[in-house]
């Protein structure tokens, strides 16, 4: 359906193959979250890996920062329709986290958990083989509290609500269990190139 009188802004032709359908470019870094931003002290910070209810391994901030560090430049896409190109991240890939725990994925599904009670589900296929990291730096600086600092999940090929802020653990689950937004009308997978914004899109 055409909208009478609408021709659109044609400012980003050179990046057109990097912008998923229905998205627009931003230069700033908008902040969205469903509640107050928690204050997490790195002295208290802990990141845990679990299989169902069973803890497998946990890292303190110092232990986590001693793991192999990766630097990525990625485009990110928020379901609220903004996209941001060439964002710079540093952190530990999920592959390196699993390797340090000497763990092969025991199930196909993962729930990421956060300090504020947030959760989001991501299949291990979308986390492993260089697809995702737990990021502790953005633009070369420690990740700000507003953007999920001290650490957030980064799954850049999915809508950004999957990149849980203030992340404190990954939990393998036997089924694909819906997380916070997935229980509230948002898509179970969230692929921006297929515009999987809301349930069953």
């Amino acid at each position, binding site marked *: *359906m*055409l*909208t*009478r*009188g*609408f*021709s*659109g*802004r*044609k400012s980003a032709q050179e990046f057109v193959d990097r912008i998923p*359908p*229905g998205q*627009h470019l931003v230069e*700033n*870094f*908008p*902040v*969205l*979250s*469903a*509640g*107050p*931003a*928690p204050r997490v002290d790195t002295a208290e910070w802990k990141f845990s890996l679990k299989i169902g209810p069973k803890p497998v391994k946990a890292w303190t901030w110092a232990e986590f920062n001693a793991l192999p560090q990766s630097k990525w430049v990625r485009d990110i896409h928020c379901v*609220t*329709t903004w996209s941001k190109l060439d964002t710079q991240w540093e952190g530990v890939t999920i592959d390196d986290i699993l390797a340090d725990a000497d763990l092969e994925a025991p199930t196909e599904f993962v729930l990421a958990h*956060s300090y*504020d*009670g*947030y959760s989001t589900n991501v299949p291990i296929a979308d986390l492993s083989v260089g697809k995702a990291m737990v990021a502790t730096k953005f633009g070369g600086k420690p990740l700000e509290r*507003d953007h999920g600092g001290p650490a957030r999940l980064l799954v850049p090929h999915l809508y950004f609500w999957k990149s849980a802020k203030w992340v404190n653990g990954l939990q393998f689950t036997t089924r694909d269990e*819906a997380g*916070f*937004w*997935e*229980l*509230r*009308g948002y898509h*179970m997978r969230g692929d921006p190139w297929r515009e999987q*914004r*809301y*349930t*069953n*899109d």
Partner: protein
Amino acid sequence: MSSDTPTTDGQSAKIEWQSAVVSSIVRQTPTITSYFFRLPQPFAYRAGQHVDVRLTAPDGYSASRSYSIASSPCKMFSDPSAEIELAIERLEEGEVSPFFHAVVQENDEIALRGPLGGHFVWPEKPAGPILLIGSGSGLVPLISMLRHACRTDNDTPVALLLSARTREDVLYRDELIAYEEKLRRFSLRLAITREPPHRDKDFGRRIDAGMLGEVLGDLPAMPAHVFICGSNGFVNIAADGALAAGLPAAAIKTERYGE
């Protein structure tokens, strides 16, 4: 983050686009205009939910944005509404809002789908007083809640702290003041940031922790639910202030825009 019961589950059907007709346009403030839409496929919604609006150009380019619903749902939650109101603020650097303000006329058809969002919504059974905090067009989901509360609920105390640049920028000003005069359980406080306030109980400054303390004093007990909507900076001050006042994080729901 709250542990409330979600309103939708992973099994619900896809929400389809529909071609809504602009039935009327009402300018509310120098920067905010209301657009009323007639829905060919009426839907039931909860106060606080939003819709997505999509504009499509002849070359196939499209732009979509989310807008909170300003109108209140039908008295019975489950009854579908055939008309909704969106109040859209003109953002100078925007793409969709300037189009609405400059081009959209009555009888235009606009692609729209909803209702969307299952978090920032009025509780079905409020567990106690409710505190609403908004700035500028952040009032939109809150006015839906307030209209709903005024129509359906006879005993939940509600306080609203609303920040705006000037008195003229206060969205739905006359309606808010009328609610306060009519309903003893509703308290309105304005924070006017660029001119002196007109009413004794209003503030002539930006939101701060002390202001929150005074507004909490308008309620007979600590609120069971807090809804905060506005720019990210505003929401951070309000949410941190509510936490400092002793409210649990789980009681505070936020909706943000901007950096």
